[in-house]
């Protein structure tokens, strides 16, 4: 046996005695950050989280992640204008993920498979909460209160649930069977006492609700048409846009068959009605708006309030939009409208920096139409809570929905002056429910805001490849005559493709990059998910803080922080 003199050999792996971690000036940490889709979602859905579950093949888990924020994905997947996709980081790389297609698929799948909501059965002595109005805001509030272990009394003045979603969204956008199924699914939750044809102020007073319940959520929506006249002339057959739209959605017909119509307004009601009229065979449908057609690059305060998708589909279907126009006067023959005088208009800043509408003299034009329909918006019908409505709206704290000066009363949805979409209403309901639970527990409400999204520049794009987005089939304009749904939804393989395209912004996707690229063997891989949700732990005894793992993390999940 040869004896090796000490000094000429060392035992294997003995460098572990030397802790190189002492050299470190910065340490890597795992930090989950909100993906831009999550921050942008008015309903508060975390699309990144459910796309990850879809990619792992866990469709039910994905749906449960969706309904942790929004109980109505089959509905919102169809009607939402998906700000998540506008915010998607992948838009800077190739194309956004078709998030709404995935949401819709999950919603439909839950209805098809009969997955039950992950909501506990409330105990007999659970706190009781009241919700007024079963539109998206009220439904979301009721659902999240049930999730929080409460019993909920939900009252609805109409003979059916759904609010605006039922009465004012055309069937080509939201088929009635989907609506019914999803509402029934949610309304069957245990602990929910749902009372139809119960109107606040008539059948029950706000005081009674407050006495019997710990807190009250008001989701009345906006249903009272605003007064409208042009130059004090009101045609005899005047109907508001919402009235006509509701009549059509409920019965499928319109009371009159004019040849040409002018709709005044630029909101979703105006655009939906314009498209309905085209379907009903009205040859000329004019939309008169003070604003412009929304498009990327058009500032929000100069764009029509209707969503871009709806406006562009309306244009495809032959609706004429008159941008930056106002109605100066109506031309009447007897009580009937035969035309109207339009004038060019624009919003300009005045000396105080406030926007003011200016009509430019000498730009008047005449438009001959058989009917004029104002769709200039609605006010809150404050029956039963008149004192809480100011200037036609509910004034609420923007995040938690507390009503000014009222303890235990919360509100949200269309009743707010600044919200007008289904997903915003769902978000309002969700946050108000959280506020009601805190109110009951006697906790303070800290000011809230959407989470700060991770910027595109914090991702490492070297580890992804471009791939085209899956597009859902869209009915060509010439075939959009009836009630058939225009957008066809994504198939299961396309949904998985979209999930695979997701960049997983700000969240670990267990890609092994940090583990593979650490020169110091200081990233250790775990078999089960570690405490922070990743599959890796840092061995700070040896990590020198070089920052390779953070720089090469494709999703920006690793950050370097000073020691």
């Amino acid at each position: 046996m040869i004896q090796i003199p000490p000094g000429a050999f060392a035992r294997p792996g003995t460098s572990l005695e030397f802790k190189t971690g002492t050299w470190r000036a910065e340490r890597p940490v795992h930090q989950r950050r909100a993906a831009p889709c999550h921050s942008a979602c008015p309903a508060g859905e975390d699309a990144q989280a459910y796309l990850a579950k879809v990619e792992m093949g866990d469709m039910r888990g994905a749906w449960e992640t969706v309904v942790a924020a929004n109980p109505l994905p089959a509905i919102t997947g169809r009607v939402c204008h998906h700000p998540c996709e506008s915010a998607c980081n992948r838009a800077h790389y190739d194309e956004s993920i078709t998030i709404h297609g995935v949401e819709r698929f999950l919603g439909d799948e839950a209805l098809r498979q009969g997955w039950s909501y992950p909501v506990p059965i409330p105990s007999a002595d659970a706190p009781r909460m009241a919700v007024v109005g079963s539109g998206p805001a009220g439904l979301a509030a009721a659902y999240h209160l049930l999730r929080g272990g409460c019993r909920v009394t939900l009252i609805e003045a109409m003979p059916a649930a759904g609010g605006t979603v039922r009465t004012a969204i055309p069937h080509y956008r939201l088929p009635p069977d989907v609506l019914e199924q999803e509402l029934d699914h949610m309304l069957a939750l245990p602990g929910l006492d749902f009372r139809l044809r119960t109107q606040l102020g008539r059948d029950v007073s706000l005081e009674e609700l407050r006495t019997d319940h710990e807190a009250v959520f008001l989701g009345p929506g906006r249903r009272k048409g605003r007064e409208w006249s042009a130059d004090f002339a009101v045609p005899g057959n005047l109907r508001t846009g919402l009235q006509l739209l509701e009549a059509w959605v409920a019965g499928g017909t319109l009371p009159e068959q004019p040849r040409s119509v002018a709709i005044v307004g630029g909101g979703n009601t105006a655009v939906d009605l314009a498209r309905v009229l085209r379907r009903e065979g009205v040859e000329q449908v004019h939309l008169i708006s003070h604003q412009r057609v929304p498009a990327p690059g058009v500032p929000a305060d100069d764009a029509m309030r209707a969503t871009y998708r709806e406006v562009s589909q309306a244009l495809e279907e032959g609706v004429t939009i008159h941008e930056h126009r106002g109605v100066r006067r109506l031309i009447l023959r007897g009580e009937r409208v035969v035309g109207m005088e339009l004038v060019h208009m624009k919003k300009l800043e005045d000396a105080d920096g406030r926007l003011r509408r200016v009509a430019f003299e000498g730009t008047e034009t005449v438009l001959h139409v058989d009917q004029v329909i104002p769709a200039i918006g609605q006010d809150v019908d404050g029956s039963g809570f008149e004192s809480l409505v100011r200037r036609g709206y509910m004034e609420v704290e923007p995040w938690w929905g507390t009503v000014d000066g009222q303890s235990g009363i919360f509100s949200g949805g269309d009743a707010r002056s600044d919200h007008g979409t289904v997903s915003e209403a769902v978000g309002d309901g969700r946050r108000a429910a959280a506020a009601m639970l805190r109110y009951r527990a006697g906790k303070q409400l800290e000011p809230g805001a959407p989470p700060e999204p991770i910027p595109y520049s914090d991702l490492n794009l070297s580890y992804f490849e471009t791939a085209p987005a899956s597009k859902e089939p869209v009915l060509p304009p010439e075939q959009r005559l009836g009630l058939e749904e225009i957008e066809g939804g994504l198939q299961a393989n396309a949904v998985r493709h979209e999930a695979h395209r997701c960049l997983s912004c700000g969240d670990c996707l267990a890609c092994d990059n940090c583990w593979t690229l650490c020169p110091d063997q200081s990233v250790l891989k775990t078999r089960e998910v570690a405490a922070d949700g990743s599959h890796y732990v840092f061995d700070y005894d040896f990590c020198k803080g070089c920052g390779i793992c953070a720089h090469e993390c494709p999703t920006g999940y690793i950050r370097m922080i000073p020691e």
Partner: protein
Amino acid sequence: MNEQPLHDLDTLRARQPRFRGLESGHRACQGCGEALAARLTTEAAGPDVVVANATGCLEVFTTPWPQSAWRLPWIHSVFGNTAAVAAGMEAALKQQGRATQVLAFAGDGGTFDIGFQALSGMMERGHDVLFVCFDNEAYMNTGVQRSGSTPHAAMTTTSPPGELRMGKRHMKKDILSIIAAHHIPYAATASVAYPSDLRKKVRRAMDTEGASFLQIHSPCPLGWGHDGAKTIEVARLAVQTGLFPVIEMERGELIGTLPIREPRPVSDYLKLQNRFRHLFASEYRARKELEHLQAIANRNIERFELRGVGPETYDTEGADTVHRGGDRWA
């Protein structure tokens, strides 16, 4: 952020699903490309190997007596004779009828310059040895002196830019052509930015009978003057610009390349490094040298036909895409 680790790190370390040839606690600088290259090489080569290691950074930072970061039999040779030591070990193992594979590790100094004649002899005699050159393009261990591998126009302490020269006057030695002239069964280049490709080449070389050679481009944050966090990015850009062609040869003939999907301008690579800082001065000589380096990259792309034709699975964009759950291709 969880300050309290749930896992017992010693147990976890022992259970890592890969062979740990080079253990933590070594004294390499932060972001050392060579340490990463050696770690990747040894984990792919597996436990049944012996290593001869030339003098250099790798030898110094892994074995500060009385400790060693290696978890495999390892011997330190003098600077010039690694290949000869490896050849001797190979002959002895063969004589004993053992299947243990022999690796020889050297830096670019120990390969291109000082160790070259021993390497040439080992290859010429056809020993079944994998010679790995960790190419960090200068004598880093002794304080960044230029070597035969230092690229043209790079600044080192012995090739400073100034009145007379813009960094190193000479070209980077075309070591692959010299290796090719030995007609050994397998020779390849690899980069730490493409770990799957690197590990695949190590395994392939290990499976080859006879001498094989692997040159691994390993950025040196200290010597090249870049942020240690950007080691991988620098290495990736060297490949994507065409300045470091990633190729494979059998018997001296080109058999495969890592195609470049979209070649990047060399300035993207150069501007990250202090050693090329003088090339971005606003003077004619600097502009000329920049164009010169671009021409060298273009020639590499032309010579090895590196330009891909459309997206490929294993090109510079596709070779290292990540997937949920790890699952790298090699």
